[in-house]
């Protein structure tokens, strides 16, 4: 690609300086190209995973079994979870990091561009393997995204090896992405860009990358143990052979809890970029934001067993994990406080990115509150494995992580394409999403408290009305997302020209380069004031 680099500089006007065709995308090492690939891939996965959610909600629209077999239903919940976590949310954040981190710190590209290409291009294969396994005889994985042993060992079907390999590939991809982010931030900051001057999106991603490096290998270990237990007669998780099935949960959640923060810390970063822009004020409490992020990351390693309160832990363990979990809400509260304080007496305007951000702050906080309820050990015995948990993690993940990704996409879209997006359509997308997402997830709290278990294709008739409402919310939310595709498509095709700064209150290096951002930016480092 080095030849194309040369003439790119002379053609700054051009949308991209590289040749077109499939080879450009296959071989590209440009951070903006790879960022776009990640984002488009994540959008595709969002719709595939979303399609599965539609199957789930269609089945649950009425009590009784009507559309799918229970086993297929379980495959849908499992693969929906895996795709949304590893295929939609994580790649979207990696895509945003690819696009924005180099521009925000004044670097010409990511530090390891070739590895960057690899870490993206192995991803489609991981998901191809996972999706193909659904068509195997005996079906795909059906043991839940948490693949608890012995469901995934003794009782799983023949496609388990495929599941294991696809998770391995996803893990390798994330680890390579994380290494790239860390090296870029450590070594490629423009002179004068000290750590405490870095935009918060960069900070949160740096910390996320360390989390990824710490826990993705543990996930790889866990799936490997499942593989050997199932196929090679080891007994890591089989009591009969001297192992312990509960140990699976310890290992999985040692990965799993930090993983949920991997999916929310970059969201915190995005919101911390957007709120100051549309409040026309500096972010309130910058350094406390950095420290809060770091303490959330550290604490996330000592709370894993809050997913295991009902496994028969001793009282001392239950209390330890209960208090540590509650402790995490302190730095999380600091963040929410800082965002609100940033808006306080700001001259607010409500452009679409800001609307998504405000919705994020309110709805993520609801998810945090239900998390706190779940953290109360005795209460969790009632809530565990009910729809209350489903409500909790969808508030933090859909109205949290996904809303932040939407906010970020609307915020930077004009920088990427050079055009303003269709504001009317985007507002329609926002309002429809906001209403339907709450119709979808809020009633889940109530059916959960009333005792409806999660991961079942049928339920007691007492839950029928609520489930019908939930499903309608689900279909509406799913359809609303098509508007997002329309907005993005139109914005790529054309529209009102975007200025370099795009948003009146926007500050930061990414707003100093032209819109659309040229193929190569900051080949000579910028001056940092």
């Amino acid at each position: 690609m080095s030849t194309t680099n040369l003439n790119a500089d002379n053609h700054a006007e051009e949308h991209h300086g590289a040749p077109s065709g499939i080879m450009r995308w296959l071989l590209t090492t440009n951070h903006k190209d790879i960022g776009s690939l990640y984002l488009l891939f994540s959008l595709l996965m969002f719709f595939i995973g979303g399609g599965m959610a539609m199957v789930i909600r269609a089945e649950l629209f009425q009590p009784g079994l009507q559309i799918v077999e229970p086993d297929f239903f379980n495959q849908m919940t499992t693969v929906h979870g895996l795709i949304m976590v590893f295929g939609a949310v994580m790649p979207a954040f990696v895509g945003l990091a690819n696009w924005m981190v180099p521009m925000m710190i004044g670097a010409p590209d990511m530090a390891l561009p070739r590895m960057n290409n690899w870490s993206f291009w192995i991803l489609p294969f991981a998901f191809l393997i996972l999706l193909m396994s659904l068509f195997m005889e005996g079906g795909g994985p059906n043991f839940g995204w948490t693949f608890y042993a012995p469901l995934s060992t003794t009782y799983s079907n023949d496609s388990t090896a495929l599941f294991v390999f696809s998770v391995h590939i996803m893990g390798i991809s994330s680890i390579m992405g994380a290494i790239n982010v860390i090296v870029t931030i450590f070594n490629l900051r423009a002179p004068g860009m000290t750590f405490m001057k870095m935009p918060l999106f960069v900070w949160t991603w740096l910390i996320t990358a360390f989390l990824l490096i710490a826990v993705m290998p543990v996930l790889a270990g866990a799936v490997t143990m499942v593989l050997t237990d199932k196929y090679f007669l080891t007994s890591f998780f089989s009591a009969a052979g001297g192992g312990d099935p509960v140990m699976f949960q310890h290992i999985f959640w040692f990965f799993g809890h930090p993983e949920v923060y991997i999916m929310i810390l970059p969201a915190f970063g995005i919101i911390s970029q957007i709120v100051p822009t549309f409040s026309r004020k500096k972010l309130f409490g910058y350094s406390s934001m950095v420290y809060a992020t770091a303490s959330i990351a550290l604490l996330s390693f000592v709370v894993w067993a809050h997913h295991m309160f009902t496994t028969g832990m001793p009282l001392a363990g239950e209390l330890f994990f209960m208090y540590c979990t509650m402790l995490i809400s302190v730095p999380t509260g600091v963040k929410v406080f800082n965002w609100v304080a940033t808006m306080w007496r700001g001259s607010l305007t409500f452009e679409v990115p800001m609307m998504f951000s405000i919705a994020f702050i309110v709805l993520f906080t609801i998810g945090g509150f239900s998390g706190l309820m779940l953290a109360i050990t005795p209460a969790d015995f009632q809530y565990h494995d009910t729809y209350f948990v489903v409500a909790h993690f969808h508030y933090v993940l859909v109205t949290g992580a996904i809303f932040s990704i939407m906010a970020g996409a609307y915020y930077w879209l004009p920088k990427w394409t050079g055009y303003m997006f269709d504001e009317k359509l985007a507002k329609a997308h926002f309002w429809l999403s906001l209403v339907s997402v709450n119709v979808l997830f809020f009633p889940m709290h109530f059916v959960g408290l009333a005792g409806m278990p999660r991961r079942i294709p049928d339920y007691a008739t007492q839950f029928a009305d609520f489930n019908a409402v939930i499903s309608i919310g689900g279909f509406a939310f799913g359809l609303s997302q098509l508007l997002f595709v329309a907005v993005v498509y139109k914005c790529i095709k054309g529209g009102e020209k975007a200025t370099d700064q795009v948003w009146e209150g926007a500050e930061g290096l990414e707003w100093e380069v032209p819109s659309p951002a040229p193929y190569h930016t900051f080949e000579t480092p910028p001056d940092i004031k």
Partner: protein
Amino acid sequence: MTDKQTAQQDTKKLVKKLVLTVFFMFGFGFALVPLYDVFCDITGLNGKTSNVAAVQSDSVDKTRTISVEFIARTQGNLPWIFKPEVKKMNVHPGEMHQLNFLVKNNSVDNMVVQAVPSVSPGIAAAYFNKIECFCFNQQPLEQGQAADLGLQFYIDKDIPPEYTTVTLSYTLFDISKNIEQDEFTKLFADNKN
């Protein structure tokens, strides 16, 4: 140019460190397995009794009586009968006791099973001393064959006063498919002698 070279060296160094961390954490995932067991051993948290025979007790504390309950169950739909001779015993700490568990292989296959013990409350597991237990070994039984499996135990005198009832539960797992073929036949050959 030299600037660029040092930058590249920095990058290499950092990448090396990060890759090492990745391998370290991969190993750590596996190390969690023994670590978790060690942790539970030290703290006695998970209700696992020891897998090795205990030494005989030398004295008896007649002032206390503890009620010991026995539960026996089979895992999955194993077509075996498995039950303790008595459901409950009242014992003094330090006093030796013996009882049998009755098993019968009602299936049409020769099978090897493994009994896995668990004590509740978990903390009491550390005070449950087994001098002899069928759970120390794998148990081969031919089709239709029945056997009495022995357990010899005592409750440690140091058991804290709040424990007045201790439950020992055994779960019988079919491990016929988890062991190699020649080991399988050997177990049955040894059994005959």
